[in-house]
């Protein structure tokens, strides 16, 4: 396809290693300076930005939770007023779900999946850059709005009619709904990139039964995102229309439906939990395999469990609506499906246990976090089965029992594996090791602090303490436990502080990491730490699930790629047989301009519907610039 009449045949076949690396670096490297940083499409740079931004949002959300704990530590406290408290708990939930949990999992995948499947860049790299800028803009929108006392105050799921035009005065609910649009656009973009990367850009020979479990989990997660997120985009857009131009989607008096909101939101909201949890499953599987020195027990079962969880995730959203007044048969059905999700989750837990049982576990920090995950997640899963039962749920609905349950599931199920994953992949990403001693302390503090903070909340919930209250009377029997919880939160916060200090310190001055410090078996460890801009000097060829174990001497490689343009191998979906050499787009500033134009349109449209008309002009210009044929070799297929 590419004309072969070049003066010199610049393929990698006959070049020696030094010359090859020099030429690849000049083709793939991101230029220095601000312009280079703004126009880069390198998945590693964008992934790193994504991860750092998500952790900044984690820290900010954590500060909010400490503020809430300070207010709740004693009855009738005067630290935060009711209006501000409403904003704070809404911000905490919204920020943690939409700006931390989902993006950070995708960020890890943006960085790791191309490396794990042995390719040189993610598919649609410019879309990837666009998605990061959209995510950043959405996060800034939410936080700046909060800073000027316009933060959303309607809860993280913004039920109508509370969030509708009659009861939510001002622009607070609009900020929430539009922030959803930002994060969903960025999440959908990353999901599409990941699906294409996994299906079409795997290293030659890496058939579907040989891709790492983390890649499998991200593939399933991406499909979940693609199917779940449109529901919430419809819901949030309908909410903005109701509020701004007087449509009647959620107004029963004019033929709308209040329950429609809950159905649309939770049709997204429940798969959202698995969008956060399934990547964590992949991380846990990877870490368990490495630190027990053997492949994960029951690879096929694990993959089937991932897919089964993904499918079941769409069949149980109604369990969030048990007290909304639904037919009995519906409640029974969704009770059954909610309990059924424990089967694939249990299968995964037992597979990991079997792996540890049969392996030789090495108790390094990443593995400690995995063990912490298993303990906490199993407890969260147990209370999950409890609240899946309608009579019990009716009792504890909107109490601190539910708060305890979902923190056990989300922090245990996602944050613990994520912290383990950071300790695990930190050397690959930064080229430096994190401190093992501090890591153990951080784990100890976070694990202890987490359980001491959140386990008493079960009891508070059973004692009837409702969610979202900004204070309570001294006569209530809750003050002792609340003080205990608030003090324990300080331990938890100290653990996270230690983690952040360790990460920053190690990134600056940690011991230099070798290419494969953990003796792991997957492809990302086959290249240097951190990887060069082109990931691999020569395209690896894979013949097994553990390429670095089974080829301990040297990894077989494919050749024949041009080095004077960005080129990667496209392979078939199932067998990963090489199909074509495909060019990969180069750096471009247009994704940034497009994201800016979209940002202007979306924020403007909170105030007037005409923004959609006039705002589309700069957006059209930016997209035209983005897709304008440049006439360079990179545009050839």
């Amino acid at each position, binding site marked *: 396809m590419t004309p072969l009449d070049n003066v010199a045949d610049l393929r990698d076949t006959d070049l020696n290693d030094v010359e090859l690396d020099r030429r690849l670096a000049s083709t793939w490297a991101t230029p220095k300076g601000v312009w280079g940083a703004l126009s880069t499409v390198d998945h590693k740079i964008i992934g790193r930005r994504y991860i750092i931004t998500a952790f900044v949002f984690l*820290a900010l959300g954590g500060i909010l939770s400490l503020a809430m704990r300070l207010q709740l530590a004693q009855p009738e406290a005067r630290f935060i007023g009711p*209006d501000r408290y409403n904003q704070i708990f809404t911000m905490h939930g919204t920020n943690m779900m939409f700006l931390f949990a989902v993006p950070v999992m995708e960020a890890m995948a943006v960085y790791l999946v191309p490396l794990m499947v042995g390719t040189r860049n993610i598919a649609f790299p410019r879309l990837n850059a666009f998605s990061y800028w959209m995510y950043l803009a959405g996060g800034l929108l939410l936080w700046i709005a909060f800073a000027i*006392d316009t933060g959303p105050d309607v809860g993280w799921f913004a039920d109508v009619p509370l969030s509708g*035009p009659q009861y939510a005065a*001002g622009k607070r609910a609009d900020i929430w709904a539009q922030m959803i649009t930002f994060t969903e656009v960025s999440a959908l973009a990353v999901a599409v990139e990941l699906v294409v990367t996994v299906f079409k850009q795997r290293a030659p020979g890496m058939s579907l039964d040989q891709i790492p479990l983390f890649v499998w989990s991200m593939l399933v997660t991406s499909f979940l995102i693609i199917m779940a997120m449109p529901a919430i985009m419809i819901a949030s857009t309908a909410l903005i229309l109701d509020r701004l131009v007087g449509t009647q989607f959620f107004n029963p008096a004019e033929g709308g439906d209040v329950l429609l909101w809950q159905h649309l939101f939770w049709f997204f909201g429940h798969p959202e939990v698995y969008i956060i949890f399934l990547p964590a499953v992949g991380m846990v599987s990877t870490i368990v395999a490495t630190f027990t020195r053997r492949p994960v027990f029951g690879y096929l079962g694990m993959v089937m469990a991932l897919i089964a969880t993904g499918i079941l995730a769409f069949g149980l959203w109604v369990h969030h609506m048990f007290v909304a007044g639904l037919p009995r048969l519906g409640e029974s059905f969704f009770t059954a499906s909610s309990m059924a999700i424990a089967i694939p989750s249990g299968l995964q837990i037992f597979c990991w246990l079997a792996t540890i049982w049969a392996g030789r576990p090495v108790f390094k920090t990443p593995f400690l976090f995995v063990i912490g995950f298993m303990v906490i997640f199993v407890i969260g899963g147990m209370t999950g089965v409890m609240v899946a039962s309608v009579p019990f749920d009716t009792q504890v609905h909107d109490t601190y029992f539910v708060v305890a349950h979902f923190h056990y599931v989300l922090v245990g199920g996602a944050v613990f594996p994520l912290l383990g994953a950071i300790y695990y992949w930190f050397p690959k990403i930064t080229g430096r090791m994190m401190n093992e001693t501090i890591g153990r302390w951080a784990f100890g503090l976070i694990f202890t602090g987490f359980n001491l903070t959140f386990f008493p909340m079960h009891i508070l919930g059973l004692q009837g303490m409702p969610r979202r209250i900004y204070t309570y009377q001294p006569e209530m029997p809750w003050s002792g436990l609340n003080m205990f919880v608030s003090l324990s939160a300080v331990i938890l916060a100290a653990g996270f502080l230690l983690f952040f200090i360790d990460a920053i310190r190690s990134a600056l001055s940690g011991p230099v990491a070798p290419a494969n410090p953990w003796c792991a078996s997957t492809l990302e460890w086959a290249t240097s730490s951190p990887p060069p801009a082109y990931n691999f000097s020569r395209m690896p060829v894979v013949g097994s699930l553990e390429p670095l174990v089974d080829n301990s001497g040297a990894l077989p490689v494919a050749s024949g790629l041009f080095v004077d343009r960005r080129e990667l191998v496209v392979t078939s979906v199932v067998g990963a047989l090489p199909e074509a050499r495909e060019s990969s787009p180069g750096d471009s500033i247009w994704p940034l301009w497009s994201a800016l134009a979209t940002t202007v349109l979306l924020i403007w449209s909170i105030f007037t519907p005409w923004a959609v008309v006039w705002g589309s002009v700069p957006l059209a210009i930016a997209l035209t610039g983005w897709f304008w044929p440049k006439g360079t070799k990179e545009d050839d297929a």
Partner: protein
Amino acid sequence: MVRGRTLANRLLLTSALLALTVGCGFLGWMRQPRELRTNPPVLADLSRFRLMSNGIGGAPPESYFAEAEPYENDAYNLSQGKRLYTWFGCAACHGDGRGAAGPSFLDGWWLYGPEMVSIVASIRDGRPHGMPAFRDRMTIEQIWQLAGYVQTIGAYSAKVAATGRNDGPQTRPSENRAPAVMLFEEGPVGVNPDQGPSP
């Protein structure tokens, strides 16, 4: 080493951004929050507006401007006013704003002028031909909130801060659609309905 330095720069940038965000948050914390319970001295001052001797127009209290005219520009106060409109039965005479036994608010024709003080005085002290005085049934703050909402119903142009539609049957465009504007473009003469006997 070079890589270490660029990484250090990035981390520096990140922590600068973090500091900026925390700073923003702090500024927001210091900013005047939404008032669910207004300062008593400010409340007391709300009654001290001055009215022209003919009962039309006048000057609001100084503190009203110091607080940035909250009952006209604050969506929360306007939406409170909308609730008061229902709770105190304004609709019995004024309908959904189109008027019935009482005058309309939608046609842009103000018997006592569109100033806040006129509307506040109308609600507080009542007017001839049937408008009762609400001074003993509502607090002065509620009267100002209701007056702000009544003014919004017949606003000359769309306001950024305006109440949305109610979750009920829709009998006219919602307040944030600036319903009176179209009527004004045709000029006040042709569309002015019969307002009953003049004051």
